[in-house]
Structures are given as C-alpha cells and as structure tokens.
C-alpha cells in the first residue's frame, strides 16, 4: 500500500511537471491523456463486462459537439457562427471563453451520460457480436447524421472558439494539458474506486456468465447501464477537451471518427491487456508513442500500418502486455504458484 502511494504521488508530480519539462510535447501529452481516458473507460465495457463496444465514440463525438456549441451558444448566435466558418466576426473575451469552456465541459459530460442511460436498456440487451455491430452502427450513424445538420456546421465543419490572448504563447497548450490531465486523474480515481467495490465483481460475473449472474439474483441490466454511463461521462468530457484542443470539428474525421479514435480505444485496451486497471494505461502510452513515430516518419502509410497492427495484435497478442507479464511473473500479481504444478504444465505443453 505504501509503495503504491509513493508510485501515485510520483506519477502525479511527474504529470504536473511534464508540460514544463517537455514544453515542445504539450499537445502530444494532452492527446495522450485523452487516449488514456478513452482506453480506460472502454475497458469497463470491453475488459471487465465482456461487452465489446465500438460505440463509445458516440459519447466522445457528442461531448465534442456539445462543448463547442455551448461555448459559442452562450454568448453568440450559433447558426451565424458556424455559417461564418473560419472568419471570426465574433470574438470571445477571456472571461467568456473560460466560462463557456467550463459550462461546455459540464454539459459535454452530463448529456452523454444521460444519453447512455436512455439508450442503455435497449442496446445493452444485445449480446456478443450483435452488440459489437450495433454499437459500430450507432457510431457511424451519428457521424453521418451530424454531417447533415446545418446548425453545427454540416459538411464544412465547426470551428471552436480560438484561445483568448492571455498569458503568453505557452498558455493555450498548458491550459488544455491541465484540463486533460485533471480529467484523467478524475477518471482514474473514479475507476479505481469503483473497481475496489462489489461493482467490479458484478461486472466480471456478467462477463463470465451473464445468465448465471442473473440467476444469482444480480440485476445485471442495472449494473451494465451504470457501467456504460460511467464510460459515457468520461468519454464526453474527453471529447469536449479534445474539441477545444484540435480547434476544428468535422463530423466524420474528428468527432465520430470510428476509423481512428473508435478503433484506437479498443486497440489500446487490448494492447495493454483487457480487464486490468493498468493495462489500458500502458497500452495507450505504448500505442501513442508508436503512432506518433509512425505518423511522422511514414506519412500516408499510417492506415496500412494500423490495419496490419490490428491484425497482428489481435491474432498473436490478444492477452496484451499485462497478460504477458502475468504469465511470466505470476507472483507479482498476487497469484500463488505451485512450482511442481507449473512444471507439470510446461511439460504437458
């Protein structure tokens, strides 16, 4: 326990100091925080609950659009803003920007949670691959439909309010970094807290055998919906921050980007190891470093690499980094290993 406390404290200190140690990588670090949030929250469904969702991107995109719309709509007419596109006829004062951002992030987190609660009963009744394809359809449908709605920019996109001219050149990056870092800390604390309760055991019971869990008297549907709502909350929050960070929202390429973010979150969680607390975090970090390297040096071939990476990870590495570590050093994970038994198993192989 004490060792963990030191670990957490050092990570927190490192996180707070990171933008000053690596000033050139502030944007990358913010994106990393968002990716970790997405991977960790996907893991609630995919890893712990056994519901492999491709649809968490829905909440991410919803949060992104909502945050930007609220931020603009609080002070200016939204339709005129999107119509003017890149040319800024309206300018936020610093106070308006921060108030709008705060209100926008609250809405971006709360509304997807409510949406998840409303659709949860219908969607989470599906199982296995029906659930996977249904959520895939949800994400793509949201992208296609939002690309046809005029007030949020339709096909030409939505420019989020530019960062006001305060605090020097570095202020924008630092602001968004701390936003995403605090969202990450909040997500981590919440998820760690709920994983230490009976809730996690129920989720695992649902994953292992839902019918038996129900026969044991657990209201599985209630817990599934709660799990999805927790995911939706943080996905929406991450989306809102990411919208401000990118500065431009397009329906299918930025917000409901099933081909990138929607797959990334699944891939990161699997790469790190599904069903563990630290797996998705490690997976997201490794993936982000790999992705940035590849996107920089092999521009144009990145989706080819992504496709190959998905196939290779899924076929040869489905247990992920944590699963591999667990097999190699089971003692570290608190598993009692009988040496004779282990040897016997090795011989059997």
């Amino acid at each position, binding site marked *: 326990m004490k060792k963990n406390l030191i670990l957490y404290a050092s990570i927190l200190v490192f996180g707070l100091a990171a933008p000053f140690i690596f000033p050139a990588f502030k944007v990358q670090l913010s994106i990393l925080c968002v990716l970790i949030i997405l991977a960790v929250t996907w893991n609630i469904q995919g890893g712990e609950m056994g519901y*492999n969702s491709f649809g968490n991107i829905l909440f991410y995109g919803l949060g992104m659009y909502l945050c930007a719309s609220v931020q603009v709509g609080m002070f200016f007419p939204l339709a005129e803003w999107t119509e003017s596109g890149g040319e800024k006829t309206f300018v936020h004062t610093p106070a308006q920007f921060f108030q709008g951002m705060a209100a926008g992030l609250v809405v971006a987190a709360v509304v997807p949670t409510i949406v998840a609660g409303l659709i949860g009963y*219908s*969607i989470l*009744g*599906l*199982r*296995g*691959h*029906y659930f*996977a*394809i*249904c959520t*895939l*359809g*949800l994400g*793509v*449908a949201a*992208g*296609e*439909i939002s*690309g*046809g709605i005029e007030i949020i920019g*339709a*096909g030409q996109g939505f420019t989020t309010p530019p960062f006001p001219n305060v605090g020097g050149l570095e202020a924008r990056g630092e602001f968004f970094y701390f936003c995403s870092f605090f969202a990450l800390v909040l997500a981590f604390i919440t998820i760690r807290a709920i994983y230490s309760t009976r809730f996690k055991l129920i989720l695992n019971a649902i994953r292992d055998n839902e019918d038996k869990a129900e026969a044991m008297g657990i209201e599985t549907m209630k817990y599934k919906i709660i799990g999805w709502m927790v995911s939706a909350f943080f996905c929406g929050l991450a989306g809102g921050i990411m919208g401000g960070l990118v500065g431009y929202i397009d329906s299918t390429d930025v917000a409901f980007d099933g*081909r990138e973010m929607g*797959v990334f979150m*699944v891939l990161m969680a*699997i790469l790190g190891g599904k069903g563990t607390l630290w797996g998705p975090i490690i997976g997201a970090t490794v993936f982000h470093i790999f992705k940035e390297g590849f996107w920089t040096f092999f521009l*144009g*071939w990145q*989706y*080819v690499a*992504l*496709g*190959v*990476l*998905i*196939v290779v990870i*899924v*076929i040869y590495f*489905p247990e992920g980094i944590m699963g591999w570590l667990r097999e190699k050093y089971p003692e570290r994970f608190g598993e009692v290993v009988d040496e004779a038994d282990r040897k016997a198993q090795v011989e059997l192989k």
Partner: protein
Amino acid sequence: MDFMVFQYPMITVQACLDGILLGVLFALIAYGMALQWGVMNIINIAQGDLVILGGYIAYFMYLYGIHPAWGVIVSPFIMYFVGVGIYKLVINKVVDRDLFISILATFGISILFMQLMNFAFGADVVLANSGYGTTFLFDSNVVLPNSKIFSAVVSIAFAICLVIYMKKSKLGRAIRATAQNARAAKILGVDTEKVYAATFGINAALCGVAGALISITFTIHPYMGLPYTIRSFMIVIVAGLGNLPGVAMSGMGLGVFEEFADYILGTEFRIGSVFLLLVLILVYRRFKLSRKREYLK
C-alpha cells in the same frame, strides 16, 4: 424534407423499381456473408471492401478497353484467390476463437484494404461506363438504366448457379455438412480446413461479382466498403441464416427503403439512415426475443 413522393405517384414507382434492382445486388453480397457466417461462424467486416476491390477489377478492364461486363466473369476468379489468400494468412487463425477477435481482425483487414486501394487506385469516385442505354416506361415517366436491369439479372443467375452448386456438387455437400457440425464432418473425412478456405473464397468471388456489377451501375470509391458490410449484415439478421428466399426479400426491402430514404430525407442522410435502421432492427429483435426470455446469440 421533400414530399414529392406523395404528390407524384410515378416517383413512387421509380423508387420501388430502383430499390428492387439495387436490393438484388445487396442480396447477392448478403448471401456470401450468410454462407461464411453459417459455415465458419465469422462476421467479415471486410466484406464491403472485397466488393469494392472486385469493382476496381472491372473498372480497370474498362480502362484498358475491355467491356466492363466481362468483369463479371474475370473478377470472381481473381477474388476467389484473394479470398483464399486472406483465409490462409489471417482468418484460419481466428476461426475457432472468440467472435469479437474475428470482428476486430477483419476490421483491421478492412482498414488495410481501404488504404491500399486508396494508394493504388486514387481517391476519386469512378464508374465503368457500360454504354447500355436506358429503358423508358410509363410514358417516359420512369427511367431505368439498362445496366441496372443487367446487373439484377446477372446477380440472380449467379445466385441460382450457386444454390445448385451447393446442392449437387461434392464440395457443396462438404460445405453444408461442415456448417451443420464441423466435428462430425471432420470425423467422416471432410477436410474442414479446405472447406473453410473454399467457403471464404466463394464468398469473396460473390463479392467480386457484386463489385463488378456495382462499378457498372453505380460508383465505387475506396472508402465506400463499410456500408455494404452493414447492409449485408442487416439483411442476414433480418432473414436468418440459411433462409435464401428471406435473404432475397429483405435485400429488396432494404433497397426500396434506401431509395425512399433518399427521396424523403435527402441524399446526405442516406448512409446514416441505413446505419440507424440497423440499430433499430437489432433493438426491435432484442425486445421481441426478451419477451420469451431468450437473447440474440
């Protein structure tokens, strides 16, 4: 929103005929999906990308001066080997694993194919001009391109050939046996590995035919694959596995639905309405089954 449909009955006729001709093509793709789903228990997200790849084969024949209708013969041959290749490289490692693994693996293949096609063929929307002219019906109020009629006839012919092949040939019997019980088939001397490879190849060949027809009648583009996958998935779950007349009927139904969505909601919502319909159908089935304490499995 446009309510022309209700004021001019001829538009309704036009949309229905267009939809049925389009739906036959969807049914052909869905038949391939039902085949491999039933036999190998795999949902192939890359189905639509195989279709588009088949379309590019016909398009390239057109570019080199061969009539694109020959693509209907050439494309399935090439696509059969592409399908067997994919099976040997990837699918045979995920056949007996968790279904989600196969969905994710084929999703990876789909992304890979999309991008490779984008590199190889460019990001333009293309079509192969068949030069078949058009047919006018009802005082020129209904316009049907002959290429659409051609594509519907060819797909029906291919579907019938395949059904007969599955019933009569030795391989067809082996495929059906494997679908019923892979273990028993293995005991009785069926090389299931070969059967799986052939099934995936036949599925890819069907996609090739459909793709060649789509490149003649409609347009193709490297990123247009996923909607075809979703459509065929939807048709299969509405019809049920192994229900061929059902696949044909629901394929046509989907085609008509799309044409009407196109007229009423506008073209920009066409793909969105397809995906939304998928969600609605799945949710409807979930509630229908939950009354009997069953679930989709």
